């Protein structure tokens, strides 16, 4: 067991390259026991590659990586015995039933059959699949498969769970159920390490976030810290005609702490959005529509990683 203060995962100048492509470009971070730690970033930011290295599924190219204070290169089996992995794409055993998936997975961890049977029942109840215990995996919905994958990752009572985009592709009900379950795990003291590109997910679940872009870390902190550091408290979204925008560009730029020109609207970052809107009205500029809202992690994310679409 690592000491209470020692990190579960420690990375120093961690790099991963595939041929000439650099997926992870020298990152440093620590994951502490009991926290929910999130990697946030657009597609191709290096989140999954980092997760795979921690899961001992991908060799480290260079730098240092320690998981449970062990080296993934030499201690993979010992590390994996204490890890739970929820991969991006479900890889359940389609030839087995729901319950058999858990029982068989427990066998891979060398968990005695009797213990595995009890644990399978507990976990099926935990992810609300008890009624489907004898169903073939094929007949489950996407949300159910995801829940089963999470239950499977818990079969060895892991100290650290790696979740790669745990709710991508699920409907809102399914997502909320999963968040609720993950939240419970967190309360029970399980350390969560997840990747996501959903801001609401990151805000809901993570104590600490690491924003990645192009293989590097661009920001780190709690959701609230990141909002405070990179954006203002509020955002004012204003829609006006292109002519008005063009003619008053200079004057508008002086308002708020930061102005972003988007194709269909202007976005003012300010601690008091109403005040900026009032200033625009005082300038006598015609406003088609205006909305003051709280700044979110999404604003941070777009601010840091840009608005260009990455596929």
């Amino acid at each position, binding site marked *: 067991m690592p000491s209470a203060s020692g990190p579960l995962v420690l990375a120093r100048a961690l790099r991963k390259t595939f041929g000439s492509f650099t997926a992870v470009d020298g990152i440093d971070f620590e994951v502490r026991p009991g926290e929910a730690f999130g990697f946030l970033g657009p597609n191709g930011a290096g989140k999954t590659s980092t997760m795979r290295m921690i899961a001992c599924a991908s060799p480290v190219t260079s730098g240092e990586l320690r998981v449970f204070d062990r080296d993934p290169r030499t201690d*993979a089996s010992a590390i994996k015995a204490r890890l739970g992995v929820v*991969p991006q*794409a479900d890889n359940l*055993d389609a030839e087995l039933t729901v319950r058999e998936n858990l029982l*068989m997975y427990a*066998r*891979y961890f*060398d968990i005695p059959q009797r213990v595995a049977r009890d644990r399978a029942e507990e976990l099926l109840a935990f992810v609300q699949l008890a009624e489907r215990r004898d169903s073939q995996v094929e007949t489950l919905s996407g949300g159910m498969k995801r829940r089963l994958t999470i239950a*499977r990752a818990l079969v*060895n009572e892991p100290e650290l769970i790696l979740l790669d985009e745990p709710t991508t592709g699920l409907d809102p009900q399914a997502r909320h159920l999963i968040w609720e379950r993950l939240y419970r795990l967190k309360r029970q003291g399980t350390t969560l390490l997840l990747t996501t590109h959903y801001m609401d997910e990151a805000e809901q679940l993570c104590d600490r976030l690491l924003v990645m872009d192009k293989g590097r870390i661009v920001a780190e902190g709690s959701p609230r810290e990141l909002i405070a550091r990179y954006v203002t408290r509020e955002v004012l979204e204003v829609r006006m005609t292109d002519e008005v925008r063009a003619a008053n560009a200079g004057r508008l730029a002086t308002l708020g702490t930061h102005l972003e020109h988007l194709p269909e609207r202007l976005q003012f970052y300010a601690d008091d959005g109403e005040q900026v809107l009032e200033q625009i009205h005082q300038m006598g500029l015609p406003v088609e529509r205006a909305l003051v809202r709280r700044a979110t992690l999404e604003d941070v994310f777009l601010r840091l990683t840009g608005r260009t679409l990455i596929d």
Partner: protein
Amino acid sequence: MPNALRIVQRNALVYRRTWRGNVLMTVVQPVLVLSAMGLGVGALVDRGGAALPGNVPYLVFLAPGLLAATCMQTASFESSFPISGKMTWQKNYHAIAGTPMRIVDIVAGELAWVALRLLAVSVAFTAALFAFGAARSPLVLAAVPAAILTGLAFSAPIMAFAATLKNGGNFNALFRFIITPLFLFSGVYFPVTRLPEWLQRAAPWTPLYHGVELTRGLVLHTLTWPSAAVHLAYLLVMCGSGTVAAVWTFSGKLRA
């Protein structure tokens, strides 16, 4: 090694649901082939006074060769689509690789499972031989391990190959251009001495030939020690290098 048994356990769990149809094929197939070829064709061959090694009736000549070839076929099938499917479609192995199971455990487990299937096939086949009265002595039982080894010699390299394929794999070429010709020209149905000169010379380079010779030699008691050693060495090397290759290709897929 016990880790590998988990894979066997997993496959057995799946097999429990499909075994009925499978067992029927395992038993019925050899009976059909043995009766058609052994009794039907055999009657003609024996009447023609052909000189078979050991001067045995055709059925007795055919049976051990057919057993080795059937093991080759079963092993090849079991090591192609199922393996490729578990690697690419279902990503079963990716899930298993997330547990303390090592890649060697996975490969060893799949080979052990194939061996178990081959044991079932060989036992059913041997039972059929007794039923046909083609088993002249308990020596027939020696054919079982030889046939299993023959199957495994194909299984390991095919697994290595199957792991590299995309989308569940296309094995048509393998079966069409390798397995089927081997089945026909490795001395299963007739002694290779009947083949044209160049094919006769090529035969000892091919794997099924050694499996057939070893299996048949054990049953008919026509094996010499040096030739037994050569057959055994050929099959063991294939098995061993195939296993090393499979661990390598599995690693390439599972640890990138």
